């Protein structure tokens, strides 16, 4: 029982990331009808927003401390981050410590801007082109984005820690009456899950309760009719693209402490996110979220030793196997609408 709960918990953080990326992916697909292979790159850029902010905050100047000497007898060089000299040592240090959560604020305008530029500059011209062309051009864009990141940040993963408060783990088992240390769960992963829940709820609330969201949902259902009503749906769709980019970016920012950002993480997550979208049903937002968590948890179950002993290698392929079965048995996915991209 405790092992079961542990696996569910372990699946939640990856599931959250899948759900957030898939949500944006399916939002873009449902509204714009575009298959965006560069969506994983947006997630990756989000992570690197966290890296950049942490680097910026750590920018330091060097002073010589005459009272101390290093092992060569020279005066010790002391690096002081500018932030600390501006805000004072204590506040400055905690600002640096909280770099990742702060990067949320930092990343939203950046991600929305990137989304706008992508949509207006490139994707817009591909609405009427075949899906194969959309796949190819966004695939090219994904390569370009990841290579640019690689050029500036290097090929190695960059550890980006969470704030000190969230280091360490929660003994979840004790809360449920199990033995101590039976279910250990890192705090940051709980934060990530909670954060994902908030973002997902915000997107749904936005689509459900605002006029803007209503028009977008109508557009997802029947683009032409909404166009006939004289509503400038294209402008709204541009904004939706920005929002989808921001959601992917936020997913990336908060994921940085879980998985040290590297330039190819976007591609790794992209393939899985596509699978998630397909399993959930192309163009279905609840489907994307449900499938994201479902597959995240399934993946974590498959990596249990008992299961791996039963079916070796299952943890490596479980998501693909599920996707293949779903696509064959229920091509619309779990919650897909009829007629969405069938043939």
């Amino acid at each position, binding site marked *: 029982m405790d092992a079961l709960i542990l696996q569910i918990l372990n699946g939640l953080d990856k599931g959250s990331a899948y759900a957030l990326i898939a949500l944006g992916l399916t939002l873009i697909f449902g509204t714009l009808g575009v298959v965006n292979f560069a969506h994983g790159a947006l997630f990756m850029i989000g992570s690197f927003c966290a890296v950049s902010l942490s680097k910026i905050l750590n920018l330091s100047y060097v002073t010589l401390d005459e009272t101390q000497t290093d092992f060569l007898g020279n005066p010790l060089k002391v690096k002081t981050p500018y932030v600390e000299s501006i805000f004072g040592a204590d506040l400055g240090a905690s600002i640096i410590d909280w770099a990742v959560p702060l990067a949320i604020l930092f990343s939203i305008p950046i991600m929305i801007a990137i989304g706008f530029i992508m949509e207006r500059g490139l994707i817009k011209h591909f609405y009427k082109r*075949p*899906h194969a*062309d959309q796949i*190819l051009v966004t695939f090219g864009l994904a*390569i*370009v984005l990841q*290579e640019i990141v690689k050029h500036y940040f290097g090929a190695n993963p960059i550890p980006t820690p969470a704030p000190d408060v969230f280091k360490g783990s929660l003994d979840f088992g004790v809360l449920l009456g199990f033995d101590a240390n039976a279910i250990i769960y890192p705090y940051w992963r709980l934060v990530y899950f909670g954060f994902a829940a908030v973002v997902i709820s915000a997107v749904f609330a936005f689509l459900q309760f605002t006029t803007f969201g209503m028009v977008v949902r109508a557009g997802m259902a029947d683009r032409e009719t909404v166009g006939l009503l004289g509503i400038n749906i294209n402008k709204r769709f541009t904004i939706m693209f920005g929002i989808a980019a921001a959601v992917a970016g936020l997913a990336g920012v908060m994921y940085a402490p879980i998985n040290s950002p590297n330039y190819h993480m976007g591609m790794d997550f992209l393939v899985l996110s596509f699978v998630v979208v397909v399993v959930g049903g192309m163009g279905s937002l609840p489907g994307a979220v449900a499938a994201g968590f479902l597959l995240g948890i399934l993946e974590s179950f498959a990596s249990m030793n008992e299961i791996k002993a039963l079916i070796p290698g299952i943890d*490596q392929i479980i998501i693909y196997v599920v996707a293949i079965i779903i*696509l064959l048995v229920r091509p619309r996915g779990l919650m897909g609408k009829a007629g969405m991209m069938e*043939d």
Partner: protein
Amino acid sequence: MFGLGKHDLKILIIVAILALLAPFILNPFPADSAMAQFNAGYPDLMQRFAIYGIFAIGFNILFGLTGYLSFGHAAFLGVGSYAAVWMFKLLSMNVLPAILLSVIVAGLFALLIGFISLRRSGIYFSILTLAFAQMSFNLAYSVLTPLTNGETGLQVYNDDPQILMGPNSSTVTNLFGLEMRSTYTLHIGSWNFDFAVGYYLCALIMLAMFYLSIRIFRSPFGMMLRAVKSNQTRMNYTGLNARPYTLAAFVISGMYAGLAGGLLASMDPLAGAERMQWTASGEVVLMTILGGAGTLIGPVLGSGFIKYFENIFSKINENVLHEWFSFLPQGLENIMVWMVSPFVGSGWHLTLGMLFMLIVIFLPGGLVQGGQKIMHLFRRDRPEDDKPGAARQSTPAE
């Protein structure tokens, strides 16, 4: 001749001349000159031209004709490589059984994956093939380690059975004793031209495969494949079953990929899982699109182009750039180097990605279409050549 129309025969002969004289054509600069770095006439690179040419020609039979965009073809290439290395381990270093087995295994694998993936079309097909390839890649790294040797990669060891090895058998890859690596170098003045057995084997096989693809393009079967791409509804209501046609195309292109994989292993008896990664699948898509999907010669051009520039660009580093721009004033030189350096060396992939986007945006018909546009500029008065035998261009996957 060869059952080909005049136009097709011309294309075949051009490709044959290019392939057979490649050691000359690709080595235009004297060996000790500064320009020698742009030479591509060494066996290692020429082999890759031919092998990736085969890969792209096969991919074009599927994507160019039927419009089904597979994102998993690298899996067949990888499987072909593994099959070939196993033949080296079990039998001998003779490449013939290795190549044969790689084609057969890749064909069977493609039959299985195609049978399942082709139940869906469009984007779903692309994602299914992607999922299968990624699954194969993950398996090759994990449970299938006894077959693939995991991250180390599969290679031939001294204690392998090699039951057909005689005491005098060659210990490097060979074709009945003719070693793949054996090279004759012709020195003319300060030029060096390398003629390697391995390259010529690859080139001859590539020519045979190119010929086969022309035959397929010009056959009723090829016409049916184009019909699949053009309009599946009409196809069905014309009493034709699209599924076996697409499956046949899928298996054929899978076998081409397996052959390419087998040849890669025959030139260098190694096989690793990274050959199956989906970025490798993306590369063959790029080669086909860059050259011109659905055209005969496009994939050959595309693969040659990409492999050539990959090789050249990867070699250029900042020192080379400084040398190039040394004629400029110091400040300007540094600016130029700073601007160009992200695109060369390890930045080759950035150039590749940009190229990919530019081609899809501005030239969906690839280099062949670009070439035709330029040709039209020069002879605008001539009406468009639209004989049934003429190489037909078509935009990818409409």
